């Protein structure tokens, strides 16, 4: 088991390196002189030269990459082209709101989505299964930003129950979380259903039925416990995809997260901030995927035996 964990983490290193190189090159292949952009439009030639030396832009490209990585490890993400503030400072307050949004959405989506999938599988082919699957495929097809606008329409404009945006109280997170989780609920219900149906076809389930176990016992004790393995893994994986979804949801609800910072930076062509956001998102994504794999190995004895 330990060797599996070590090997899985070791396999991450080349990908992390490649991703960091791509993100590092991102800012270098753009037209325009980064030193000029940092120094400002009307800086003198000397100032630009100074900034260039300070940023290490006069060094060979390989050295520049090493300097860039060295600074990253010290928490230095460079300076914003627009506000000229350190990027780390701009990002610092944004991470917690995005994490709050993603986790809250994941939790309610798992609590609703997994049972829906189970009910659907148990009632396979009946109207309950069909209606859950109709809702589920609709949830996958609904544009998140539109759902957000609809929710605002009802919960804020018509009923005045919840705020339409902003950050702070518990009430503020309800609508963004509902919007972000909708897609995940649908995915989990579909996946949960398929997973349970798959397990219900196994021989040991037939054995359990044959020995006269009650139907609910067969489902809860035999099938569901095994079906949960891929479901749990799937749920964790959804967290990674929610990072992408959060970008749009944050901009609908004026949620002060990393996603909204990224959208604003792309609009303003603030490349160091874009670079830092992409780095943060991809590393988080890779980290989540790795933890998911490890979790899968821990809860599924077959993987342990294979390795």
């Amino acid at each position, binding site marked *: 088991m330990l060797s599996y964990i070590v090997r899985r983490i070791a396999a991450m290193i080349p990908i992390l390196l490649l991703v960091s190189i791509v993100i590092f090159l*991102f800012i270098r292949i753009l037209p325009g002189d980064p030193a000029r952009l940092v120094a400002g439009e009307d800086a003198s030639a000397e100032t630009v030269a100074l900034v260039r030396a300070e940023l290490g832009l006069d060094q060979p490209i390989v050295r520049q990459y090493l300097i860039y990585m060295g600074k990253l490890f010290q928490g230095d993400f460079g300076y914003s082209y627009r506000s000229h503030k350190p990027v780390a400072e701009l990002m610092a307050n944004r991470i917690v709101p995005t994490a709050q949004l993603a986790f809250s959405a994941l939790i309610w989506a798992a609590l609703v989505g997994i049972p829906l999938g189970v009910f659907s599988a148990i009632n396979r082919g009946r109207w309950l299964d069909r209606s859950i699957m109709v809702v589920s495929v609709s949830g996958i*097809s609904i544009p998140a930003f539109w759902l957000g606008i*609809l929710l605002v329409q009802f919960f804020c404009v018509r009923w005045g129950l919840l705020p339409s945006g902003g950050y702070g109280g518990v009430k503020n997170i309800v609508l963004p979380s509902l919007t972000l989780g909708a897609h995940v609920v649908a995915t989990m219900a579909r*996946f949960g259903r398929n997973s349970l149906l798959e397990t219900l076809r196994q021989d040991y389930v037939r054995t359990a039925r044959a020995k006269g176990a009650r139907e609910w016992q067969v489902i809860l004790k035999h099938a569901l416990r095994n079906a949960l393995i891929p479901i749990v893994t799937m749920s964790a994986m959804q967290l990674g995809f929610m990072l992408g979804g959060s970008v749009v949801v944050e901009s609908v609800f004026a949620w002060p997260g990393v996603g909204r910072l990224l959208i604003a930076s792309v609009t303003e062509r603030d490349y160091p901030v874009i670079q830092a956001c992409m780095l943060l998102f991809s590393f988080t994504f890779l980290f989540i995927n790795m933890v998911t794999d490890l979790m899968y190995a821990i809860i599924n004895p077959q993987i342990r035996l294979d390795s």
Partner: protein
Amino acid sequence: MEISSAAKRKNARERIDSPLRRILRKVASNPTGVASLAFILFLILCVAFPGLIAPFDLAAPDYDHTLEGPGLAHLFGTDEYGRDIFSRVIHGAKYTLQIGLISVFAGAFVGTVLGVTAGYYGGLYETVVMRACDVLLAFPGMLLAIGIIALIGTGTWNVVIAVAVYTVPIFTRIIRGNTIELKNLVYVEAARAIGLKDRWIILRHILPGTFSVAIVYITMRIGSAILTGAALSFVGFGAQPPTPEWGTMLSSGRNYVVTAPHVALFPGIAIFLTCLAFNLLGDCLRDALDSKIAE
């Protein structure tokens, strides 16, 4: 004479058993599949003859009738310039299908070529291709698309490119896996044994074997490509007003959520139904082709 009649019989049998016919029959026997297909055909009609379906001119503003609710004159109401929303939605089908279909087909094409060649030839080439895929897949799809937009700029075609790029590694991975499986089958080994060229083996014996998986994935990716494209337009990276792209229309309609909610309602319904149609068709194709293809 005998040979030719035998060949004819063989041809006839092949036509009856052709996979395309089998799939079409299965889809036709499924009411959801038929409905989805009908809706998609209607959208294609909207793209081909928008002027015939849309009752009003696309650009003509009418300042006497701004932000009017749905009614007999204006089926979906009017927007902030008094333009007929129904007509704009009909004209907008073009952009949504353009983003959904072109990006996915382009991405699937490149991905399939890379996947088949990587799986077939292996070696250093395969390693390079697969590592490149790892890097692309290290970003959640939407964020990769935003990163590409940041590089190449905003606009409808750039959204198509961005969505196509993130579609490539998905197909490369799937098709490569498929190719490796097929490569070791007896009939491919036989083809190699009788001395067929690699290119011929790939085109004639391996590529057709990957089609069923590719078709299902293409249909299912179109739905998510449409959503991503619309989301990119919604945050202002895609088509710019006054283009009647649905995501862009929604984005401007958002400002009237209190006074005229219908402005954002109808473009949203259009995106939702289009995406739903492709997803349902994808489900249907998956059932028809192979129930084992994963979600």
